[in-house]
Every structure is written in C-alpha cells, then in structure tokens.
C-alpha cells in the first residue's frame, strides 16, 4: 500500500507548481488553471487524510471545494471573456486599473 507521505508529497508538489505558475505566468488562463491546480492539490491531501484516518470529514470538504471551484470557474471564465473583449489582451500585466 502506498504510504500517506507519498500522497502528501505529491499534493505539495502540485500545490507549489500551482502557486509558482500563479505568480510567474502572464497568461490569465494559465493563471486561472494554476488556481485549479492548487485547489486540486489540496483536494488530494484531504482525500488522503480521509482515507488514512478512516472518517468522511475530508471527503465532505472535497465536495465543498469542488462546488466552489465549479462556481469559480463559471464566474472566472466569464470575467476573462469580458476582459478579453474589452482589452484585446490576455496578459495579466495589462490589468492594472486599480493602480494608484
């Protein structure tokens, strides 16, 4: 049987990849996918803990996260489309209207 530490290690790797992509990539869609990646890294950790601790709490959390992620995807993609139609660009550095 694969030990818990393996799952957690994979989860950490995925999360760090997601975080790094989130910070360093410039394409909004990529950034968006990196967020999904981080969420799923956390999901993986939840599932692993749930399985190894033998209770269902983690799984319930995973459901919640999936639902939130789905909602976020819907809203986020809509925003990205609106953004693109307004600015003709998907570069995240062009979106700085909040700058003082």
């Amino acid at each position, binding site marked *: 049987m694969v030990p818990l530490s393996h799952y957690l290690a994979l989860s950490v790797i995925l999360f760090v990849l997601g975080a790094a992509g*989130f*910070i360093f990539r410039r394409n909004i869609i990529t*950034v968006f996918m990196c967020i999904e990646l981080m969420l799923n890294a956390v999901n993986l950790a939840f599932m692993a803990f749930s399985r190894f601790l033998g209770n269902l709490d983690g799984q319930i959390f995973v459901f919640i996260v999936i639902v939130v992620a789905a909602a976020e995807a819907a809203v986020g993609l809509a925003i990205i489309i609106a953004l693109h139609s307004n600015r003709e660009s998907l570069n995240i*550095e062009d*979106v700085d*209207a909040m*700058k*003082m």
Partner: protein
Amino acid sequence: MNLEILLLLMVLPPLAGAALNGILGRRFSQATVSLIGCGGPGLSMVFALLSAWIYSKSESQPAPFTYSYFTWIQAGQLRAEYALYYDRLTLIMTLTVTVVAFLIHLYSRGYMEHEGGYYRFFTYMNLFLFMMLTLVTAANYPLMFVGWEGVGLCSYLLIGFYFRKKSASDAGKKAFIVTRMGDAGFTVGVALLFWTFHSLDFQTVFQRVKDLPQGQFESVLTAVGLLLFLGAAGKSAQLPLYVWLPDAMEGPTPVSALIHAATMVTAGVYLVARSSIIFAHAPSALAVVGVVGCLTAFYAGTIALTQNDLKRMLAYSTISQLGYMFMGCGAGVFAAGIFHLMTHAFFKSLLFLAAGSVMHAMSGELDMRKMGGLWRKLKTTHATFLIATIAISGVPLVGAGFFSKDEILAGAYEGPLGSPFLYWLGTFTAALTAFYMFRGLCMTFYGKSHVEPETEHHLHESSYKMTIPLMVLAFFSVIAGWVSWPKAWHGSEAFDRYLDPVFGQATEALRNVSPVHVGDLGPGALMGFSILAAAIGIGVALWWYLKSTDIPEQLAERYADLYRILVHKYYVDEFYNWLIVRPLCIVSDKFLWRVVDEGAIDKVMVNGTAEGTANVGNVLRRIQSGNIPSYATWVLLGAVLWFLYIFAAHG
C-alpha cells in the same frame, strides 16, 4: 389656598410670560406682547400679596415655611431640592421685587414703544423677574445660585440690549465677567459650607451653625463669610468689583431701574442678610462687610459729585446706597439694611424711571449740562423726581430714605459691630448724597435752560403709560419709610421688630461676642447729626447750583487735580485695564494665540495629523501596485508567515 401652591403661582408666571413672548413674540402685536409681558409680573404681584396674607394668618408664622417640590440633585451626600422658603424676610423681598417690577414693566410699555426689539425686551425682563423670585424664595444655596446666575444672565442680555452698539455689548460683557469673579467666591464659599456642615439646605445649615458654641469653626465660617461676601460684592457692585455697574447704564432705562438699582444689585445684601447667622458666628467677616460697605458708600458718593451724565450719577448713587445697606448689615443691624433695601428700591427705581422720562423728552440726551429749566415742560416727571430726590437725600418725615438711612447710621454707631468710624463716615456720605442729588435736580430741572434748540422743540411730557408708574412709585417713596417710626420720635421701629424672628438669633449671638456698645451720643443726637448732614448737603447744592452758579467752576479750577481725579473716577477703570485686561490681552495674543493656538493646536495637532496621515499613505500606496501577481505574492507570503507563526507557537 395652600401656601406652597401660592408660592409656585408667584414664581412661575413670569417664566411663562418669558417663554410665550420669547418663542412666539415675533408674531404677536405690541399689544399682545405687552399684555403677556405685564400680565406675568402682575400675577406675580397678586400672588405675592396673597401669599403674604396667607402666611401672616397662618399659625406657624413667624417660623419659616418651606416646601420641597421635587429633588433636583442627588449625588452622594449632596441633596438639593427644588424647595421654596418663605419667612418674613422673603415676604418683604418678594413684595418689594414684584411691586417694583410690575410698575417698571408698565412703564416699559411706554418707554420701549419705539425702540425696536419690543418682545425681546419683555422676554428678558420676565425671565429676569422669574430668576429674581427664584433667588429670594430658594430654600437652599444651590437653588439660590440658579437664581443668582439667572439674574446675572438677564442683566448681561439687557445691558447689551442695543447689541449693535459696541459700547453696549462691551458693557454687557464687562458686567458678566466682573460679577463672575464674585460668583467664584460664592461657589467656593458654598462648597466650603457643604464640606463643613454636609448640607446646603438653609434650615439645616442655619440650625447647625446656631447650635455651635460661639467660637467653634470660627475660621471656617470666617472664610465662608468672606467668600459669600465676595459674591455679594460682585453682584451688588461693592469695592473693588463695582466697576461694571456704571457701564451697565448702557442698557435701556427701565433695565437700569429694575435690575441695576432696585432688585438684582440688592441680591448681595439679601445673601448677607439671609446668611446672617453664619456671619454672626464669624464677626471678623461681618466687620469686613461693614467697613467695605462704608468705604464704598463714601467712595462712590465722591465720584457721583462730579458726574455730568444723569444716569451715571444715579449709578454711582446706587453703589453708594448699596454700600449703606452693607454697612447696616456689617454693623449687625440686618433689619436696617433690609429696610434701606426696600425704601431704596422704591425711590431709586423712581429716580431712574424719571431720568428715563427726561431722556425720552430730550431725544436720548443724558448730559445734565445740556439740560436745565425742564420743570416747566415736564411737570409730572419733575414732581416725581423731586420726591425721589427728597427721599434719597434723607429729608425728615417725607423722605423714605431718611428713616432707613437713619436707622443704618444709628446702627453703625450703637450696633453690635458699630463704631464711630462707620458712623461719621456714613454721616458725611449722607451729606454728599444730599449734595449730589440736589445738584442733579438743579442742573436738570431748574435754572437757565441749556437745551439745544432742536431738542427744545420736541420737549414733551411722557405719556400716561409712563407717568402713572412714576406717581405710584412716588407715593411709595413717601410712605415706605413710615413703617418703621424711629425710636428717637417715640416710635416702635416696627419694621425691625417684624424681622426679629429672622435676625434675632444672629443679633443675639453678636451681642454675646461684642459687649453692647454704648456711645456718648443718644438716639436724638444721632438723628440730629444725620438731619444736619442732609441739610448742609441740600443747602450747599441749592446755593451753588441755583444762586451762585459760578462757584462750582471756580472750585473745579482751584482744585484742578482733585477735580480731575474725581471726574475720571479715581482712574480705577484705567488701573484695572493696566493691571488685568492688558496683561491678559498680551498673554492671549502673544502666547495663547500665537504659540498655543497657532503653534501647538493648528500646526502640530490639526495640520500635523493630516500631514502625518498623508506621509504614511505616500509610503503605503506603493504596495498598491495594481499588479495581480504581486498581490498574489503578498498573499502567499502572508500565508507562509502565518503558518510559520502557528508552527512556532504550537510546536
């Protein structure tokens, strides 16, 4: 009817009048304002008479009647009730105040007719009457203080009635600030009283003081007495706080008559008389009262000699007469002081109202050098002014002032704390009084007319609205003295005996401290000297101002220095200006304004706060880059730090 209801009915109508006129007066016609404005004082007078009657019939009298309506302040040991106090002293005070006030209100209808601010005037006057009645009927010091400050406020408002005139608004401020100094003494004195006796209720305090063995707590009581007298000196314009009263003449003349002659300024005398038992246990404080009163009487009398402004002369005369009242109280004959308070209220308000009538006829002119020979045109005014002058000068029999002043002078000689010094200076002042009053009378009404042709043309007697109150007051000015027929004429001094229940204990306590003072002069001789003083004063005045009218000028030339000092009122105003006002202005300007206000408050606190916020913001706004990846980095960094903290804290 019950006395407690009558007392409320006496105190409250002027307040209702003030509220009605104050809130709605602008929309009322003059007739309505007059009706409300005079109706309140009229009702007060009626109920004052009724309560006097009921009280005199009641079985409990002469014991004081008190009734507590509700508790006003309850804090720790301090308990102040809205409670009214009625005894023979209150009876006299309320009757005098309401009668004079009602007559002056009636007079004001005529006087203020064309002055503008008609409803405002009556609002303030009614409010004043309410406060004055609160003052004299209060059953404890805090409530008395309410009335005390209330009359001060109304005095301020009414002195500055013509507030567009700079001198009037300045005079109002001066009166307010100078009397405030005295009030500080009053408050501290009352606090000291509470600290010593744990109560501020008249009955309780007086009872506790009375039960003290003579000499105990004397130092505290002396301090209390002196502090209360400081308050009295401020309100009643005694040395050294008298400077506001002459300037108070900027107000309309009925105000001068009611507030600055007949009622408010006598509040100090009332305070001393009411606290007589406290002063009786602090004879040295009482002696100070007597000496200050006597000196003030003399001092103000000398200033009045050279004044050419009719109202100002009357103002100094008022200060002088108030000095007499304090001298009476200070010598231990409180009843004589109150007696003079009552007679003075009648004849001095009459003098002022008659002066107002003259002023009315003269289109506002008050300089007596520009008058003369007015008796032909102003017959009623002249007759009443003459009666009042006779009353204040102390002409025997027909002048009310004669009886009361004579009693004070006799008391100053043989009273518990009397002394020849008080008596002789007082008698000399009586001569001065007679002189300056007849001087004023002659300059105004007799001799050659110096009236300017244009004013001469308008010269007219005032309407009946103004002359009827004058006549009533003249009537009182003649008869008011008869209530206390002097002993020297085999009288019984009924007024004094009437007030015996109020002052008896104080007088007795004083008699115990200082043995009966028997002078060389009998009552007949004392009276003889005071009549002689009046006769000399009147004679000289008539001689100088009717017969040989060039003598005063020659004297003024010969004693030019003395004359200049008197005309400039001993340069006291200038001295106070130099000693207090100028330093205050300099400190305010150079330090409080430039350093504290502009430097510390404006620069450091107000602008400093704004600048500091802006600077911090300038630094912090760099974080707000608008760059989403950098926000993400911050979030991540924060999360990492947070986890590190949690691990560090919980291992």
